[in-house]
């Protein structure tokens, strides 16, 4: 029984194909201004990677910002339920899921079956989101990996306010002009982001295990900064699992459940 999940995010789009409990394929690609077309492309790439034809897929669920435009999906589900369900698949002990997405940050609270209990979102402001780090990396003229690696070089972190990314950006420019070392600035940025994310997590109520999903979770510097802020270790996904596909995986799992419930074999 084959199910698929397509997650159209603001910056990246993902697709996952599932056979029972086995992930046949997962693809990540850049989002475009035409979510409908992006959804079809990413889904075709995943089908090719899994080596199966579209006809064999029993149920498809769309999620993410552009979920309404996933024309070929049977239904669409909000990314909150999908991230909760996807994180629970790999980490049944997870109770708090922090999705640091491209445009917003979500703190999700789930029960032992991965059902969505509560959520808090920070969607009115770019501070504390993937977009914030993206802007800063561009400001400092660095690639994503180089940016993350510098977090672990020595140097006291600079204090950067976390109220607004526009304020923060001008502070970074000023620090660079004053000759502050890049690792110190990057550490300060990661702490500023972690501060916003920690505040959101505390608002929804932190219950162990805590896990971060979304593209930013691949930045070890952010993981380290959030762990310091929350004062506890974060759960990690098994090796080889990309935290950015958790939303699409959750959508695929929900597709599988709905297929089984509606008797499609």
């Amino acid at each position, binding site marked *: 029984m084959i199910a698929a999940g397509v997650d159209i995010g603001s910056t990246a789009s993902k697709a996952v194909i599932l056979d029972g409990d086995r992930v046949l394929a997962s693809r990540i690609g850049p989002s475009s201004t035409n979510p409908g077309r992006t959804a079809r492309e990413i889904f075709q790439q995943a089908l090719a990677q899994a080596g199966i034809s579209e006809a064999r897929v029993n149920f498809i669920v769309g999620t993410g910002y552009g979920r309404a435009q996933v024309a070929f999906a049977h239904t669409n589900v909000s990314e909150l339920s999908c991230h909760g369900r996807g994180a629970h698949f790999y980490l049944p002990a997870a109770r708090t899921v922090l999705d640091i997405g491209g445009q917003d940050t979500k703190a999700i609270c789930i029960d032992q079956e991965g059902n969505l209990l509560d959520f808090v979102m920070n969607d009115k402001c770019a501070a504390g989101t993937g977009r914030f780090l993206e802007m800063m990396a561009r400001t400092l003229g660095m690639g994503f990996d180089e940016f993350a690696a510098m977090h672990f070089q020595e140097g006291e972190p600079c*204090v950067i*306010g976390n109220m607004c990314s526009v*304020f923060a950006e001008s502070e970074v420019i*000023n620090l660079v002009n004053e000759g502050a070392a890049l690792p110190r600035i990057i550490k300060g940025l990661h702490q*500023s982001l972690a*501060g916003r994310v920690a505040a959101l997590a*505390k608002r929804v109520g932190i219950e162990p295990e805590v896990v971060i999903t979304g593209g930013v979770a691949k930045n070890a510097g952010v993981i380290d900064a959030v762990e310091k802020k929350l004062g506890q270790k974060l759960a990690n996904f098994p090796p080889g699992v990309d935290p950015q596909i958790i939303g699409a995986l959750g959508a695929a799992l929900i597709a599988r459940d709905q297929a089984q419930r509606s008797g499609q074999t």
Partner: protein
Amino acid sequence: MSPAPVPDQTPPKGLARELLAELGAAIEAPKPEGAIRSGRPVVGYFCSYLPAELLLAAGLYPLRLRGLSVEDSSSGDAYLSHLTCSFARHVTAAVLDGVYDFLAGQIAVNCCDHLRRANDVLVAKSRLAYHGYLSVPRGFRADLFSWYLEELARLQDSLEDHFQVKITEAALQAAISQTNQVRGRMQKLDELCRGEQPKLSGADLLTAAVAARVLLPAEFVEKADALIAAAEKAEPLSGIRSRVILMGGELDDPGYVRTLESQGAHVAGDLLCFGRRGLGLPVDPSGPALAALARAYLYQVPCARMMGEFPRRYQAMVKLFQECGAKGIIFTRIKFCQIWANEVHNLRHRFESNPLPMLVLEREYGTISTGQIKTRVQAFLERLERAEG
């Protein structure tokens, strides 16, 4: 090769700088050494309408609560949301994160909605043993004065009850004379900054003013005397383009004023709660001490929370503006502060008939967006110079 021996008599400028650095360090340290030495239980408070004399007379160590160097206020943000005053969030975070664990208690005032809610969180979530409260009225009528006096008496009973002390009339009078000395020294330091040939910068004055709320009076007076002596002999400041006065909401960071002055503005006077307004005029000790304190504190230059008292604050501002020979006003406010936000509206309305140049700066507590401030202040100074020229 060891550097040339330092001449024994460092130029006075150097001595004043050292003493100021010492004061600066004193206000940075979360737990003031004076508290450890004096053995007095430390009680934190929030507002300039709370007479520190009451705590001194109770044998306590009055410490004005600040956000200190708490980098991030995430535990404060979690409870107070990112839509409230960052000062309130930083102070709450400092208490919740244990920076103020040495406090024997805190006294809150209904200054504003933000601090009222910060107090709710401290009462519910912090481990502090004592939570006092002072409800300060928002007007100067006789019935409101008697309410304020009644509140001071209730606070006095609450302190006596919790700390098992007796606040005697003599103790209050002694405390008043001590704080009057502090006010006298601040007056002298103020003249050194306001005079024709200023010896001290606005940042130095704010450092001293904040120190006056962190140190015990005796310790402050001793340091202030040394500073006054050193400053009188020091060289006058150079590089001053225009003299300004600084007013607005909460500001307890000398670094911020230093950034303003780095562009050539000289903050010759201020109406800041942490600055010289908060200390007010000497207390007239005649009559019962508590009533004397109530008169001095309630009728100081009013804070913006005093409904209907804007004309009184406006007159004080115009008087200060003239006394300091200022050319412009710099108004600073923490983002989301509503009480001071509306002051800009009231001032702008008055400036339609009596124009005075004003620069409005919004800030976030705990960080100085130096880049932005430098640009704005420099442009403001150029405007003042153009107007003058």
